């Protein structure tokens, strides 16, 4: 039997055994605690509340309240899904806040969930963020993206976003034939910068735990953002002071819909789908409909009002939620309540809007200045085909008829435009045209596009073609087109009569002669001449219809300062 070293296994004391057990328990508890902490079990869910006493959207509290209670374990930095098909979620508040910097996050819970699903599903996270197809975004959406980038301190991304819009507008303003002016371009960029300011404010308001100083700095970066050098925005805007639930943002507050002003009649008019309409002056809404949660229309689309924001200059804007959940910013002028929409859609309001919009253009055609300019310019269709072989009488008949036709044509094109663009409302435009009372549809108008050529139509067509064989229409036989209107005997010039005498005889103040004599000489050298002393003399020749019309116009002018526009 070989000798063996003796072994000395002293039996553990009961104390040691207890210690080991406690250490094991401690380790287990520590592990559990760590897991629970990482899972966010002990996170506070006292988040910011909205007006409905619900957790404010896009906060961790809102996320926490809806996430699955199990199925997630976290091992170090790795996430593991357990529990079969259990949907995943982010763990701790810190993890939730951190993921807001990821490209998949659009600031709401649903997107956070999608991001997580992407992670736990083993999919490689695409570096190209979802929803950053800037080319396809309108300025409002770009502003939201810029605000997001600002929150992340990503000034380079902000630059890229702004440049996307800048290039888009530059392309548009430099396109041949564009109606966009350079002023429109600058205005568009200024509106965008303003939107970015508001969008930043929205994001700051979203996490209202913001320290006031930080929030103010973010809001005040408007100019810096415009210059793409936002010193203040380099630092991420993070919620660092939990429990500070002040809603003070940039010196202003998230607006409670109380004091409001009129929305204005221009609501919804002439608004570009891609460009926000910044109010001319700082305005506050007065409409009771402008409350969070209420449904309004944004450029014809129903949206729900989210937050109400007031910019540093007092401008009110709204964060509105579209049907697909996307959020955009809108100004007061862009929004319209259902009642406002119905009123605006009424025939009466539409016709009023038409006339308000078109009145200036229409009335201009009947001003003395316009008529005089059209009637006296030599190089126009009025004088086409009239040459030295045309007798004075014939030439005057032709010109008289043509200037009447020119003005009738201008009016007719306008009326036809009304007919074409306002088919259902045209019956309200003129009572006389229909012979019906206002408000009663006129079958004549609605049948315009469907009737065949009647004898009456044929007469019109014949008339059209008689003078439309080509652009270079020759002289027209005045006997067939010109009405035979006897000249006014008052316009017969008597021997040795001068301008003063003529004007006196016609009842036109002689001051009007002084003002217009040189212009009359320029336009009607056949009737006036330059005297040796520098004055303007009157030739003893017949006064044609054109000059008669001008003299009539001068005599009827209610404005003593009215002058003929000198020929340039």
């Amino acid at each position, binding site marked *: 039997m070989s000798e063996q070293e003796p072994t000395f296994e002293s039996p553990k004391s009961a104390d040691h055994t207890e210690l080991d057990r406690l250490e094991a328990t401690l380790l287990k508890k520590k592990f559990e605690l760590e897991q629970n902490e990482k899972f966010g079990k002990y996170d506070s869910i006292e988040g910011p509340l909205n007006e409905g006493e619900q957790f404010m959207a896009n906060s961790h509290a809102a996320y926490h309240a809806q996430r699955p209670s199990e199925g997630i374990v976290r091992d170090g930095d790795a996430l593991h899904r357990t529990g079969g098909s259990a949907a995943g979620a982010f763990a701790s508040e810190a993890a939730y806040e951190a993921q807001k910097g990821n490209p998949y996050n659009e600031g709401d819970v649903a997107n956070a969930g999608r991001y997580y699903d992407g992670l736990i599903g083993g999919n490689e996270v695409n570096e190209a963020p979802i929803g950053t197809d800037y080319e396809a975004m309108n300025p409002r959406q770009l502003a939201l993206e810029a605000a997001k980038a600002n929150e992340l301190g990503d000034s380079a991304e902000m630059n890229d976003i702004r440049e996307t819009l800048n290039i888009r507008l530059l392309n548009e303003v430099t396109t*041949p034939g564009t109606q966009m002016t350079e002023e429109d371009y600058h205005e568009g960029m200024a509106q965008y910068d303003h939107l970015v300011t508001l969008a930043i404010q929205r994001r700051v308001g979203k996490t209202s735990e913001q320290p006031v100083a930080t929030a103010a700095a973010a809001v005040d970066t408007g100019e810096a953002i415009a210059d793409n050098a936002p010193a203040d925005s380099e630092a991420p805007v993070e919620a660092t002071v939990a429990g500070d639930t002040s809603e003070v943002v940039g010196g202003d507050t998230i607006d409670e819909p109380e004091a409001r002003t009129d929305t204005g009649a221009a609501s919804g008019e002439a608004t570009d789908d891609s460009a926000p309409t910044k109010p001319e002056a700082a305005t506050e809404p007065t409409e009771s409909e402008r409350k969070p949660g209420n449904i309004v229309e944004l450029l014809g689309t129903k949206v729900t009002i989210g937050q109400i924001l007031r910019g540093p200059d007092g401008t009110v804007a709204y964060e509105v939620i579209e049907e697909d959940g996307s959020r955009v910013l809108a100004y007061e002028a862009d929004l319209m309540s259902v009642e406002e929409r119905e009123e605006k859609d009424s025939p*009466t309001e539409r*016709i*009023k809007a038409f*006339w308000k919009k078109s*009145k200036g253009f*229409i*009335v201009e055609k*009947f*001003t003395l200045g316009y*008529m005089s300019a059209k009637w006296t310019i030599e190089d*126009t*269709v*009025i004088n086409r085909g009239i040459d030295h072989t045309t007798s004075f009488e014939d030439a005057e008949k032709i010109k008289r*008829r*043509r200037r*009447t*036709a*020119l*003005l*009738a*044509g201008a*009016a*007719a*094109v306008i*009326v*036809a*435009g009304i*007919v*074409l663009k306002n088919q259902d409302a045209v019956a*309200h*435009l*003129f*009572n*006389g*045209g229909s*012979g019906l*009372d*206002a408000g009663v549809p006129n079958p004549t108008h609605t049948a*315009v596009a469907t*009737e065949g050529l009647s004898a*009456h139509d044929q*007469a*019109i*067509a*014949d*008339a*059209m073609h*008689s*003078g*439309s064989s*080509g*652009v270079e229409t020759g002289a027209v036989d005045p006997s067939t*087109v010109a*009405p035979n*209107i006897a000249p006014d005997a008052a316009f017969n010039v008597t021997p040795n009569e001068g301008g003063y005498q003529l004007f006196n005889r016609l009842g036109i103040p002689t001051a009007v002669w002084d003002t217009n004599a040189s212009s009359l000489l320029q336009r009607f050298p056949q009737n006036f001449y330059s005297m040796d002393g520098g004055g303007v003399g009157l030739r003893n020749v017949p006064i044609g219809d054109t000059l008669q*019309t001008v003299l*009539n116009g001068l005599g009827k002018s*209610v*404005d003593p300062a009215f002058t003929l526009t000198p020929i340039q």
Partner: protein
Amino acid sequence: MDDIISELGIEALEPAKQQRIIDELNMRVGEAVLGHLSEEQVREYEAIINGDQEVITSWLQANDPGYADTIAYQQLAEGYETDPDKVPADKVYASMAWIEKNNPNLGKVVAEIKEDIKKNLDKFA
């Protein structure tokens, strides 16, 4: 104006050429809407556009006695006091209503002339 320029597809032309084409359009439309009418009717229209108040009033009374209650007239009359040109609303209203009343197929006529001009734009080059 911009609408007509756009409709005719002449946005890229110089303003002077645009005006020439628009004058052509107006002239031909005017000849079309007046060409089938009697001399007396044309004289009536001339009187209206020349602001002959007697003719304007009598035509409106005969053809559109309720004109003053129409939205069109009321909108045209609005702001007259501050209008530097003092263009009478009844003159503008009557000028347009007269055209409409005497040309029930106006829309078709104008559309055809526009199309013809668009086809012959090269002649304005």
